[in-house]
């Protein structure tokens, strides 16, 4: 039997997905697959296009594994646009003059950005945001620009604004409608979003219709609006919506919609049964789907249909979205605008926290129909499931919008309550049953295996928390203890390793590996065990038996930077520093040409030191009386202070002195993760003690101790554990608290996460630390006393030992630094070049 020809026009996200489906189905046995790809490269991840500005390359974004097409005999014409379809003789011709006979065609031509017919729209300095080439052009122009404007305040427009902002431009968004994201969110939501975005420094202009783009010397200069106002700018990006690319379909007489789009049926067939259309060019029931998930569904449907007619059908898709736009969570799902007759709204607008949450419920309040979340979309996954599975709501649906109150029971609709048919991953259309079956049948025990087997979570990633919950629930139901092994080399959790090391007095990694492990270790177990050994015995981290365990930061006692140079942060206890010490830092920075910056932790970072310079720099610093700041270690970082009663008219205690004392007490102490502290001199809390792993706030009568807070990735307030303590008791409690944390926390678990997972939480911690319910407090205090006594500055030890210093040469066999390092000048200092600057003249090789 001869194979039939199937031509796919367009090799974008959906066109590629279609080819992948055909390969997966083994359809290449029956079909010759031929595809036209107008862009100069094969399909790439347009959804993550903005990653291009964050350093992702075209290769990183590519969706096509190298040789995939070749290995499956797919013919691809790259950089060639299909220009005509002759439906009578069934021939397709291309711009480059290729002509192909076809049996079937799949149109996956996508869409193009709509540019409103404004006078001056083609001026130099105007752009659209769709392809890698568009971004390259933008990025080149942005280098000579100060101000950038995005026309269009929809989803894409805001993403584009983020890109402009990240390129350092003063950024404006101009929206024609009275609010941002008019398609997804309502008026109130639009305003909350606008406030949040303006707070981030992007200027938002709504109700603005642009009438003219005025140029100066041939390039964009300003915009004129219908209301007579004007806005100066150096570049403009149009993001005013998309239009389906249906020209080739129109030309060959296929039916298209009134406002564009190639009309398709449930099988994604066009008005010609031999031609299918999928993705953003297809119009189903008068609708264009501008998201990738529906496009992927269409690709699957078309592939199924071509191989076995009467199969799967496309019946529309969910347009729910959750995004982080400029750092603000935005989600819109289901019937967000309450269009269902009789539906009602429940909404909370919280101007204090900048959030807006709205639920749309049916007339009787028993079912959730849709909603909008702005500022905090953490409930999105659960709420969407309630809508999609028509789960009956609790008596007070408004509870769904409230965070669990302290002490109270939180209302949550756990994964258990979802039906098997619930779609968990909408990007890849994976149901709860598919995930659970894969876990059971293949005995999966970790999330990466689940992702690999089911594809769930490999798209936008939004469903990963739900998938993780499912995995946990399944494992629990199967009575499988969730594996806590630290890695393949040790079948123990960090706590277990800690107690093995302590009880058997194990002093080296090799000893532990011999007795309790296998293989030779890895980058997971080595640093973790290095840290435990340090917490237990406080040996110098670079002794030969320990040196190979340390992450590069600990191995070179400095923080590695993206180009392989390091940063130097001397300890400045409590943030207090004399003018003379400041001068020393200044001199060192000047002499070694280090980029200098005040850190968020009340000290000074000197960046860009070559590995061979580190000992020279530290010799100078140690000589002047500085010590290592352990900015590189999982150890105590800073104890921030405020000026306290010494200067401040409100201070009730001497917070600076206490902060210094505490920083000196716990300096160098290694722990499962880094930990931070702060001391404030009164309740005004200028040192931000309540955002620290342990924080102290002065009272009239003594000190209040707060524990388990952090900023960072998931900020959490520290909680009050004891009040009005005198200094001795305060320090005793902190000793116990820290040592208990070191004993029992998991690898890389900060105090907040540690406590959140602890059964009994803060109350339990109080029992252990204040009431000594485990009877271990004396031990904990003794362990801490040992640590305090044996402290030594690692840099001081290192520079005193010539043998150790050998390791700081870049080359083992010749002198001289890493020749690849380069520097660029900026604002009077130097920094590493960005990739695109490497070849430019202003980049210079480092001296």
């Amino acid at each position, binding site marked *: 039997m001869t194979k039939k020809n199937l031509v796919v026009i367009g090799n974008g996200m959906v066109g590629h997905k279609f080819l992948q489906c055909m390969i997966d189905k083994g359809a290449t046995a029956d079909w010759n697959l031929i595809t036209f790809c107008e862009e100069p490269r094969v399909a790439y991840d347009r959804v993550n296009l903005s990653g291009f500005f964050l350093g992702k390359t075209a290769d990183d974004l590519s969706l096509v*594994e*190298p040789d995939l097409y070749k290995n499956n005999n797919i013919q691809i014409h790259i950089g060639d646009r299909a220009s005509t379809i002759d439906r009578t003789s069934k021939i397709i011709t291309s711009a480059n003059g290729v002509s192909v006979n076809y049996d079937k065609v799949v149109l996956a031509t996508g869409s193009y950005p709509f540019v409103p017919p404004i006078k001056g729209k083609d001026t130099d300095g105007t752009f659209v945001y769709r392809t890698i080439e568009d971004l390259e052009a933008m990025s080149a122009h942005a280098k000579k620009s100060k101000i950038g404007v995005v026309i269009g305040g929809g989803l894409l427009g805001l993403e584009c604004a983020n890109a402009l902002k990240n390129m350092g431009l003063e950024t404006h968004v101009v929206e024609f409608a009275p609010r941002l994201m008019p398609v997804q969110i309502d008026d109130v939501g639009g305003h909350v979003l606008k406030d949040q975005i303006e707070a981030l420094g992007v200027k938002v202009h709504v109700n603005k219709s642009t009438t003219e783009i005025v140029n100066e010397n041939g390039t964009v200069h300003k915009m004129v609006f219908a209301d007579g106002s004007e806005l100066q700018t150096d570049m403009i990006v149009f993001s005013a919506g998309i239009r389906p690319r249906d020209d080739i379909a129109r030309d060959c007489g296929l039916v298209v919609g009134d406002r564009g789009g190639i009309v398709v049926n449930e099988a994604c067939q066009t008005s010609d049964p031999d031609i299918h259309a999928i993705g953003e060019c297809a119009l189903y029931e008068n609708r264009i789907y501008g998201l990738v998930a529906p496009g992927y569904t269409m690709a699957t449907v078309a592939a199924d249909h071509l191989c076995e007619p009467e199969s799967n059908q496309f019946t529309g898709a969910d347009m729910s979205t959750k995004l982080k736009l400029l750092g603000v969570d935005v989600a819109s799902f289901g019937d967000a605008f309450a269009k269902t007759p009789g539906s009602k709204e429940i909404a909370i607008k919280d101007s204090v926290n900048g959030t807006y949450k709205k639920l749309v419920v049916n007339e009787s309040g028993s079912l959730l129909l849709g909603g909008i979340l702005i500022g905090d979309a953490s409930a999105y996954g659960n709420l969407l499931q309630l809508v999609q599975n028509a789960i009956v709501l609790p008596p007070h649906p408004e509870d769904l919008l409230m965070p669990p109150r302290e002490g109270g029971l939180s209302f949550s609709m756990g994964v258990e309550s979802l039906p098997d048919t619930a779609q968990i991953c909408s990007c890849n259309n994976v149901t709860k049953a598919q995930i659970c079956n894969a876990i059971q049948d293949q005995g999966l025990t970790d999330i990466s295996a689940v992702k690999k087997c089911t594809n769930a979570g490999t798209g936008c990633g939004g469903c990963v928390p739900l998938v993780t919950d499912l995995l946990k629930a399944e494992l629990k139901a199967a009575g499988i203890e969730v594996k806590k092994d630290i890695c*393949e*080399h040790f079948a123990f959790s960090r706590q277990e390793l800690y107690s093995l090391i302590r009880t058997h007095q194990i002093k080296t990694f090799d000893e532990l590996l011999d007795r309790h492990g296998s*293989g*030779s*270790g*890895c*980058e997971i*177990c*080595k*640093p973790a065990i290095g840290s435990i050994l340090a917490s237990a015995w406080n040996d110098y981290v670079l002794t*030969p038996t320990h*040196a*190979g*365990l*340390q*992450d*590069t930061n600990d*191995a*070179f006692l400095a923080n*590695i930077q*993206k*180009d*392989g140079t390091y940063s130097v942060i001397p300890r400045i206890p409590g943030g207090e520093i004399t003018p003379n010490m400041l001068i020393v830092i200044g001199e060192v920075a000047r002499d070694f040409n280090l980029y200098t910056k005040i850190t968020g932790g009340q000290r000074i970072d000197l960046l860009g030191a070559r*590995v061979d310079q580190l000992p020279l720099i530290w010799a100078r610093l140690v000589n002047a009386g500085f010590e290592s700041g352990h900015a590189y270690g999982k150890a105590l970082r800073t104890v921030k202070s405020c000026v306290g009663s010494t200067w401040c008219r409100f201070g009730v205690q001497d917070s600076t002195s206490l902060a210094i004392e505490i920083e000196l007490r716990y300096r160098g102490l290694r722990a499962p993760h880094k930990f931070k502290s702060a001391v404030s001199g009164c309740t005004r809390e200028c040192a931000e003690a309540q955002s620290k792993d342990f924080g102290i706030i002065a009272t009239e009568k003594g000190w209040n101790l707060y524990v388990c807070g952090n900023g960072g990735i998931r900020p959490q307030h520290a909680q009050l554990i004891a009040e009005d303590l005198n200094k001795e008791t305060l320090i005793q409690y902190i000793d116990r608290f820290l040592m208990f944390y070191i004993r029992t926390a998991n690898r890389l678990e900060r105090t907040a996460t540690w406590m959140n997972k602890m059964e009994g939480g803060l109350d339990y911690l109080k029992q252990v630390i204040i009431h000594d319910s485990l009877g271990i407090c004396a031990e904990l205090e003794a362990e801490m006393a040992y640590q305090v006594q044996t402290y030594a500055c690692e840099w001081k030890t290192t520079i005193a030992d010539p043998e150790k210093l*050998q*390791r700081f040469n*870049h*080359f*083992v*066999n*010749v002198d001289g630094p*890493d020749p*690849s390092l380069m520097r660029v000048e900026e604002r009077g200092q130097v920094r590493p070049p960005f*990739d695109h600057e490497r070849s430019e003249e202003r980049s210079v090789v480092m001296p």
Partner: protein
Amino acid sequence: MTQTTIPAVSQWQTICPLTRIIPNTGVCALVNNEQVAIFRIGNEVFAIANYDPFSKAYVLSRGIVGDRQGIPKVASPIYKQNFNLITGECLDDESVSVPVFPVRVIDGQIQVGIT
């Protein structure tokens, strides 16, 4: 699987004594104007390029060595991708690999082969 054809070594360059490398760590050597990362695991040595294709920095010699299911490997110190020390293949991304260099210990001296 990728095929590794080992080109003939035309000359061996002596780098340093084996004892110069702390067991289970690496160093960087300049060989024929190329940066080569040399690792010592026990008394065995391995050599791969020092260039980390992910961070584009010359740093692999400063990674933590170990094994994954018996395969000796190093984890880049910057973004932690692992490289097979025998073949240079990246264990976390099949499409990436780094060059490997012939290396041996003769009379207690480490030598890298120039091809």
